[in-house]
């Protein structure tokens, strides 16, 4: 897991550089801020959501498809939570955190169950 987190951090740098290269007239700080926002909203939650398939799929595949899954899930959850009364302005920190926490807990739970079954 530590190794994957290091790769995740390296990918953040690669993503920020990709943004800066493509949008080269934009300031470095804005490119970094944008990369950080997208990472927090979609990439990290996507990575967490895909932890369940950690031993079945490669990291690159999990990160890419996890990001797509996180865009879908975040959009859906944000819509319903907004209708329930939590305004969008208050969701930017809570929503990704909730997805990350729920995914991580599910991963731990299923990993523990799997270990028990193996024993």
């Amino acid at each position, binding site marked *: 897991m530590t190794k994957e987190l290091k790769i995740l951090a390296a990918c953040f740098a*690669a993503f920020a550089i*990709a*943004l800066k*290269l*493509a*949008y*080269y*007239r*934009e300031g470095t700080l*804005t*490119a970094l*801020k*944008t990369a*950080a*926002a*997208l990472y*927090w*909203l*979609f990439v990290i939650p996507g990575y967490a959501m895909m932890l*369940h*398939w950690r031993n*079945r*799929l*490669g990291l*690159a*595949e999990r990160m*890419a*498809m996890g*990001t*797509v*899954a996180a*865009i*879908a*899930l*975040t*959009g*859906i959850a*944000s*819509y*319903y939570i*907004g*209708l329930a*009364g939590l*305004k*969008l*302005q208050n*969701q*930017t920190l809570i*929503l990704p955190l909730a997805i990350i926490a729920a995914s991580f807990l599910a991963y731990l739970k*299923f990993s523990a169950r799997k270990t028990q079954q193996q024993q």
Partner: protein
Amino acid sequence: MDREKFEGILEAALLITFFTAMLYLGPAATAQRQIMHDHPAGYAASDSFQHQARAESIRQMGQYRNEASYIVAGHTDVVGFYPPILYHATVLVSNLAGMETYDALMLIIGLAIALGAIAAYFLTRGLGRAVAALALPLTLFMATGKPFLGAVTFGQMPFMLSALFLIATAWAITKLSEPKGYLLAAIFLAGTVMTHTSETIFLAMLLAAVLAASTIAAIKKFGIAGIKSAVKENRQLLLALAAAAAIAAYFIPMFIGIWVKALPYRFNVERISASFPAATVFPTDFGFMLAAILAGIAATALLAIKKRDEFANLTKSKLFPLLFSAYMLIAGFGTYAGFGLRSFQLRLAWPLLLAPLAAFGTYHALRMFLRIGKLPKSSQYAACIAITLLLSGAAMGMHYEQPSPGSMDKDRWEAMNWISGNTPKDASVYVLYSHVYSQTSSLYNTQRRTYFLELQQFAGMLNSLGSTGELNRTSYVTIPSDSGPNFPYRTGLFSFDRHIATTKTSDNIDICSADYYLIDKAFPQQELTQANLYLMRLLLGGNSTTEYDSPSAAVLRNNNKDDDCIGKQA
């Protein structure tokens, strides 16, 4: 370094390169190489402004229960009818990154395009890494200004994100045998439902065919008991469908009660899109890459014959990505079977959807003519990467077209912002003809009731002035509003009625009945500029005052409302 690790590094480098290239050639070029702008960049038509204005209205409201009144002709109870995912994702990015919603929307669409290429790669990867690499050259077409990216910036934004979810659903279907694999398929499928639902319908037709093929095969084998066996065999897929329906349970009744009723299926044969004639995609738009697609069709047909036993369980077969791709090719020709705009839209994502076919075709051509099948695995992969880079360079060299930077500019944008920030909420704004504001959804950004004088009526007004010396004050104007779904409002939790019968989306309006005037001062044609400036002088002579002025646009306040607001001619 072992082979697996070496190939893994090569793969990561390839994907990062293509991701960056897609952004660079497409979305970043549209955005003039900047993430943030002082006006919407890349927005080229009314529909794109409609999505931008809706995203901004949701940001301001903090949720999407109802449409903002200025988008739906003043109604305050029209239900938020559009699939919401794109808007919510946009607002979250906008809020967190501190950027305008128009920039966040374009950024998300850019990411959807670039991620679409990566998703197409992983969908193809079930056929092997080398084949998957060959899927990438075709995906680059998504970044070309005409017709692909151009159509997206013309307003096919929700479609683009939905196309990404569509490919991701196909990928997830190939992973259904993984533990809890159905969850991924459910999320992606629900994503298509709640982003742009027509893609769900196309996919549902394919899945229905897959399930039918599986059931028929099981019945042939086990008789009527085969139905039970088919259900068991496709349990994960059925679970995914049920979970997706549960996730989208609140939105699906809205889709059926609003969209299906407003836009029912009608048989019609269309060769060119009536809605987007300039953005109609034809297979020949792929140039020499069409040969790869055709080779892919032939190779898929041969493989399908060879592996016909696998039709009983297609979702577990390597055939699935290829059949999905071939199906999307056929679905794009649904324009000849009444699917009209929806099939034309599907064609816009052909560079992503047909990538598995093109990859398979190219791979088999390489095996046949260059004998790469005889190379060791690592060399085979490296050779395919080299061919991928060559094909990509050639395809973009021959077919790349710079995308449009859009129609809006800072002055005209600020004029609308001035109106939204400085006029009473119930003020009405009369907009003289403008080649920019003629994309009338852009006028939602005034957040006021607007009357837009179309070119024909504008010419009529000028003609009457020229012939009689009197300005004909009353003209037929457009009242910009999103009237497609007929202004639906709730009559129950899942029942709707419509305001359309009592709502005017165009009307005869007296120019002097407006509170404000929005006047474009700079046309490419000097005559139009002179005409608008002349009308502006008449309004100023009739006791209007200039409230906002810039080289391109001005806002006047009518101080003689419902009286004679036209001054004497010079």
